């Protein structure tokens, strides 16, 4: 799972957040109607603002199929690929690496997200559906016949190789790492025969969670990588003494592969990275981030690749992407991700020869408030954490967020309302979202006022609301205390600025003072870290990096990295026994109850508001306003998790 920023490329994990956020163009230009946004009520339920071709059905192109052709794909403006080894750590945990490069070269055990569904696709996966045994602790996976490009078979031993290296490497740095979960909770793994992989966990988990959040983190690795220097010949058979069979040897292999992956200039000629089991091979790469991929002629999967090249183009700014689309059209950018600031021009851009595709990635937006903050509500006053710890207050604050108004006025209808951790779009058959209501997040200053009044506050519109009845206000809140705190938001993104100004204005209507400060994205992200009240760094009250969370490499929308006490991504240090219990049920409950458990958990989150939810941008690749697809390119459908899948694409006349 990961956070993402609307203004940059989607990233995987919160580290992904940083890179992803950096890449997803989020902001919009200033809008004269900003001050009026609060006037639009948003009591309606969450609608799906996604549209266009290529969602659940592939694009059809404009004529008959032709073989060959080069697809030009626009990368994000500040996150070029910088790592190729699929065991990527936090530092290089970006969608440009994971979704737009590695995934096409090195096929994971399971593929997910095809045809805009955030689900596993067994028909195009190396692994068949896992079989559970041993009371739900052991998973046996039979492998489909796939080949590496060097002629070796993709075998269970390749999965053992991955696990050996993962266990020996600093697993705490692995992009998907959450303490206590993968790979900490893996007790054993083995390859009883070349086509069978067996993995045992420390206890019984919900099989669906294991499939989507644990097995999703496994890639087979070719035997040719099982060495510690390039001068060693590539192993061709497992004689039982390959380096990865000992912990120190596996650690040395990791170090070697990590070092090789950091040698960006050698990627295209490396004897390591040329061994692939995915549909594409790397033909060339330059350190600016220009990637040229060609079909892997030895690919054993389906369908066979029809295009002759996929060229990923690096850009220095969002303006440069726009200029390319405007001046060259599909000839210069076959698939173009349009930054949010150009959303008002989507129609005219589409007229350059594109189909406009709006497809939200599996993600949601929010900003945390610090339930451990030691900042005071006023000079000499009490710490604001006591106010933030009150569920009714967070509910009231959530009701002051005018999501529909923001979407209309600031985001040019390129976002969907959000009220919880389970995305409404793309819809998942694993979760019944029909019973999840948006109403806990609907904009209503009257409801916010009523919540405060009913909990002992005397609301003074446009004045200072004060606590009159401490026993109702909540623990730690004293009589006569007001509510004043700071929201620090990402600089340089006009939409976020407009949203925060609007929120401060709405809050003032119920006597809450919100002071606004702004800093660069990285500063906001770094400041909004979990902390203890006694820490000097715990002065922050609310940090909005214009971002949220995107699911990957764990794809089941469970909340263990988000709302469990002590989780690294639980920035606000939210802690609630019932929440922890409900999250536990989504992980360890029976398969038959998984959907219900997720729904119950999601509803509880929207009642609790552990964070403040905001509109989630649409755009497959990390919160862009939309993706433009050449009218001549067929077979394209948005992957729900943002993976590029060129094996499905072809040109038409």
């Amino acid at each position, binding site marked *: *799972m*990961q*956070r993402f920023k609307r203004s940059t490329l989607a*990233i995987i*994990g*919160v*580290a*992904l*957040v*940083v*890179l992803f956020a*950096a890449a997803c163009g989020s902001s919009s230009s200033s809008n004269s109607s900003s001050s009026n946004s609060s006037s639009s009520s948003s009591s309606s339920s969450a609608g799906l603002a996604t549209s266009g071709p290529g969602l659940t059905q592939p694009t059809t192109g404009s004529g008959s199929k032709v073989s060959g052709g080069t697809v030009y794909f626009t990368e994000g403006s*500040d996150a*070029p690929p*910088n*790592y190729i080894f699929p065991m990527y750590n*936090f*530092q*290089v*945990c970006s969608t440009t690496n994971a979704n737009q490069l590695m995934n096409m070269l090195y096929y994971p055990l399971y593929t997910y997200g095809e045809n805009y569904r955030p689900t596993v696709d067994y028909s195009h996966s190396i692994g068949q559906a896992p079989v559970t045994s041993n009371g739900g602790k052991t998973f046996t996976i039979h492998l489909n016949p796939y080949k590496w490009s060097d002629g070796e078979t993709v075998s269970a031993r390749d999965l053992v190789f991955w696990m050996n290296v993962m266990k020996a490497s*600093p697993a*705490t*740095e692995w992009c998907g*790492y*959450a*303490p206590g979960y993968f790979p900490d909770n893996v007790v054993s793994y083995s390859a009883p025969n070349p086509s069978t992989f067996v993995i045992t966990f420390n206890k019984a988990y919900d099989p669906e969670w294991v499939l989507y959040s644990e097995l999703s983190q496994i890639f087979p690795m070719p035997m040719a990588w099982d060495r510690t220097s390039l001068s060693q010949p590539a192993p061709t058979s497992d004689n039982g003494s390959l380096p990865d069979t000992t912990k120190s040897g596996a650690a040395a292999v990791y170090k070697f592969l990590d070092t090789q992956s*950091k040698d*960006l*200039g050698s990627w295209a000629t490396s004897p390591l990275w040329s061994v692939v089991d995915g549909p594409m091979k790397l033909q060339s790469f*330059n*350190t*600016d981030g*220009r990637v040229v991929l060609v079909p892997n002629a030895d690919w054993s999967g389906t369908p066979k690749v029809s295009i002759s090249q996929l060229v990923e*183009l*690096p*850009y*220095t*700014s969002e*303006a*440069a992407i726009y*200029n*390319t689309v*405007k*001046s*060259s059209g599909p000839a210069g950018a076959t698939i173009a991700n349009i930054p949010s600031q150009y959303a008002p021009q989507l129609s005219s851009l589409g007229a350059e020869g594109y189909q406009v595709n709006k497809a939200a990635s599996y993600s949601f937006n929010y900003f945390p408030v610090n339930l451990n903050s030691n900042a005071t509500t006023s000079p000499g006053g009490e710490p604001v954490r006591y106010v933030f710890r009150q569920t009714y207050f967070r509910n009231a604050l959530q009701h002051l967020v005018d999501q529909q108004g923001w979407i209309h006025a600031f985001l040019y209808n390129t976002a969907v309302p959000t009220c919880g951790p389970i995305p409404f779009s793309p819809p998942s058959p694993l979760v019944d979202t029909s019973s999840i209501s948006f109403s806990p997040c609907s904009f209503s200053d009257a409801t916010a006022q009523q919540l405060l009044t009913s909990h002992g506050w005397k609301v003074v519109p446009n004045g200072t609301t004060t606590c009159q009845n401490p026993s109702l206000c909540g623990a730690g809140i004293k009589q006569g205390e007001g509510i004043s705190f700071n929201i620090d938001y990402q600089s340089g993104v006009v939409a976020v600025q407009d949203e925060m100004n609007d929120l401060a204005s709405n809050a003032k209507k119920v006597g809450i003072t919100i002071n606004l400060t702004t*800093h*660069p*994205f*990285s*500063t906001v*992200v*770094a*400041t*909004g*870290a979990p902390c203890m009240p006694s820490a000097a760094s715990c002065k922050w009250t609310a940090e909005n990096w214009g971002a949220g969370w995107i699911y990957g490499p764990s794809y089941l929308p469970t909340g263990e*990295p988000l709302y469990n006490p002590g989780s*690294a*991504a639980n*920035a606000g240090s939210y802690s609630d026994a019932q929440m922890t219990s409900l999250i536990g049920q989504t992980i360890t409950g029976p398969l038959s109850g998984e959907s219900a458990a997720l729904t119950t958990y999601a509803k509880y989150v929207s009642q609790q508001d552990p964070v403040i939810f905001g509109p989630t941008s649409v755009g497959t690749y990390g919160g862009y306003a939309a993706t433009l697809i050449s009218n001549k390119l067929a077979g394209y459908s948005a992957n729900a998790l943002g993976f590029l899948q060129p094996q499905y694409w072809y040109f038409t006349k």
Partner: protein
Amino acid sequence: MTGFIIRRLGQAIVVVLGVTLITFILLHLLPGSLARDILGNRATPQAIEQFNQQNHLNQPFFVQYWYFLDQLLHGNLGYSYQFNRSVDSLLKTDLPRDLVLGGLSLIFSLVIAIPTGIAQAVKRNSAVDYAGTGVSFLLYSMPQYAIALLLIQFLSISFHVFPAEAPQSTSAIGMLEHPAGLVLPVLSLTLVTYAAFSRYMRSSAIDTLAQDYIRTARAKGLPERLVLMRHLLRNSLVAVVTLVGLSIPLVLTGTLIIEQVFNYPGAGLEYFQAALRNDYEVMLGITVLVGVITVVGNLMADIGYAILDPRIRY
């Protein structure tokens, strides 16, 4: 002259060291944390601790500074956590391309500005002068961004004369092999630089025209062309040489806007992105480089004075 150069080089070392120390202090005063920024909010405390340890970020300030100086003395400018590359490798790719962009623009702007400035000075207060002044003011007052976008709109989007983006090569030679892609970025930068140079040139030429030796040359019946070429041009160039010397660092790192708009990867953009991401070592590496280039640029300007004006002695 040799002694002067040696003295100036000695001063340069002190200046560069001072620049590194001040930059180091300023960068450490910035809010935020490199580890959290690079690893993300999901990173565990152990991962952050490990990152800080590996990169000496948990050491006292002067220890960190010593590590930096040590690697600098070994010719290592550091490592970019953001780009996952050494700063040396980043600059080796970027600086030659910046040299193409900034160098060509500088040359073209001088080639246009010097005769234009002289012509304006000679025809002072004429229609030619007013027109030249108007053009200069217009270009000088326009943001670089606006000039670039206007050129793209007209010459790329509307009439498809030149591409909207620069050649996508990682080498300077590769950039020069696709001159069409260089036209708009070089032209944008040339127009802005020309505006400044032409004003200085005009002003300097006006001052020179009032000198006795010009009057004497004319009184001797020397043709006007020779007066301008032999006596005016050389003596008027001193001010422009100063400006060129000061511009040399900008040639390599001052083209951020152009780099952004024309998809032209360069050191200016690297610095900007590094600043947004707390990528200290990139900022330090570029700062050191710019410090060195600034000192060298000034030294070259000083030497240029001596060549242009024999009265100047060091």
